């Protein structure tokens, strides 16, 4: 407790650490809400009939409403995460254009990336007696907006990749730059979710969901660790960052 108070007052990197912890907290809550609480992930089947969709809403009724309510309360935590990533680009030897364009893109990312799904599925769960055909429309709207609108994440990954590969300040390792490319490619793979209702390329498909989520999980884990290393190594200069070993000695 005393040490937390000391860091709060004196740690020169306190703003960065707060943003980093906000990121970690966000992803933990996100996981808990989307997987066990709402059962919105892994996604239910896109090929269901109206009656099956209505049954799904009825079964996860309370979980959907409570879980997404939590997301509405905490979705603002995405702002520190995006700010921290933008900051990593600001620390690089590249133009500020990279940091700013990333910031602009990701400021809007929560809407297609999550909030539309949360609102629409909440409305579906709100009235159990709603016409199943309408529930089905809400269901399609929710999952397609969530899975199918990956432009931000595609272009965002590419912007971050380019900044990392061009950077001479060693802010992020180059392999992580290439990993951004791998992640960007999986954001393309979800596009067929707009076309198929059965098979491996649907919004819950073996390829466009299961393999993609594995890549995304690795990518997210990697960037959270790399942002942590960046904060540890930060020297508030504008030249190359020291290595982790030098910085933590």
């Amino acid at each position, binding site marked *: 407790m005393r040490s937390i108070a000391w860091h709060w007052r004196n740690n020169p990197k306190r703003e960065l650490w707060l943003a980093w912890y906000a990121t970690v907290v966000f992803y933990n809550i996100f996981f808990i809400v989307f997987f066990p609480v709402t059962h919105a992930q892994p996604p239910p089947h896109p090929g269901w009939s109206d009656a099956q969709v209505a049954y799904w809403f009825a079964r996860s009724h309370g979980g959907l409403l409570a879980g997404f309510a939590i997301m509405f309360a905490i979705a603002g935590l995405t702002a520190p995460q995006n700010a921290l990533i933008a900051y990593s680009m600001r620390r690089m030897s590249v133009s500020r254009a990279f940091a700013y364009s990333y910031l602009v893109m990701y400021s809007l990312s929560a809407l297609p990336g999550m909030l539309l799904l949360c609102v629409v599925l909440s409305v579906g769960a709100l009235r159990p007696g709603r016409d199943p055909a309408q529930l089905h429309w809400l269901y399609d709207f929710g999952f397609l907006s969530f899975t199918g609108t990956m432009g931000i994440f595609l272009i965002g990954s590419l912007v971050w990749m380019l900044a990392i590969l061009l950077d001479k300040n060693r802010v992020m*390792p*180059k*392999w992580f*730059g*290439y*990993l951004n*490319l*791998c992640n960007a*490619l*999986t954001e*393309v*793979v979800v596009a*067929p979710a707009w*076309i*198929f209702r059965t*098979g*491996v*390329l649907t919004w819950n498909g*073996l*390829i466009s969901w299961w*393999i993609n989520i*594995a*890549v995304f999980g690795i990518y997210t884990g990697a960037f959270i660790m790399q942002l942590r290393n960046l904060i540890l190594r930060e020297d508030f200069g504008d030249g190359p960052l020291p290595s982790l070993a030098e910085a933590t000695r």
Partner: protein
Amino acid sequence: MTANTGKPARAIPGQPDMWVLVLFEALVFTAYFAVYLFHRSAHSELFLRSQARLDPRFGTLNTLLMLTSSLFMLRCVQASRAGAIRAAMTSALITGLLGTAFGVSKITEWIRLVHGGSGFTSNEFFEYYFFLTGIHFLHLLIGFVAIGVIACQLRRRERRSQEVVETCATYWHTVDLLWVLIFSLLTW
């Protein structure tokens, strides 16, 4: 930069970081292939009937184009390492042309298939076929960027970074590697 005289040291060509991409993408594609093969053997009748609608000459030609482009990419790296800029540039250009020929042949094959009534949504086999060849095509397009980077480096002559040249070359060979696997699995 790698020493170009005497016995070469055992060094990873290009940035070791690129190998993260190579090995990672190889894993991702292996996962795609595994899903494909599983469904293929479970519905072999449909898959084999659809596969028969592919012209194996396209696949074979594309593979030869890709392999040859890799050969010239290797020559480009060797020439650049030896300081023969002009030869390296020529090889890079040929690599790009072979890649373009591959792309043109690929698009021709797609158009032929679609006109023949076999599109992305026609059946399960063609879903995989267009998905795998499509995502590979995307890798090919990124490969052209890599060739562009090599050309820019070579134009800087003495100030070129052999490391960047080799990194981009490694990427190009990955495109080749993935195609070889796709060819073997989709056509046979």
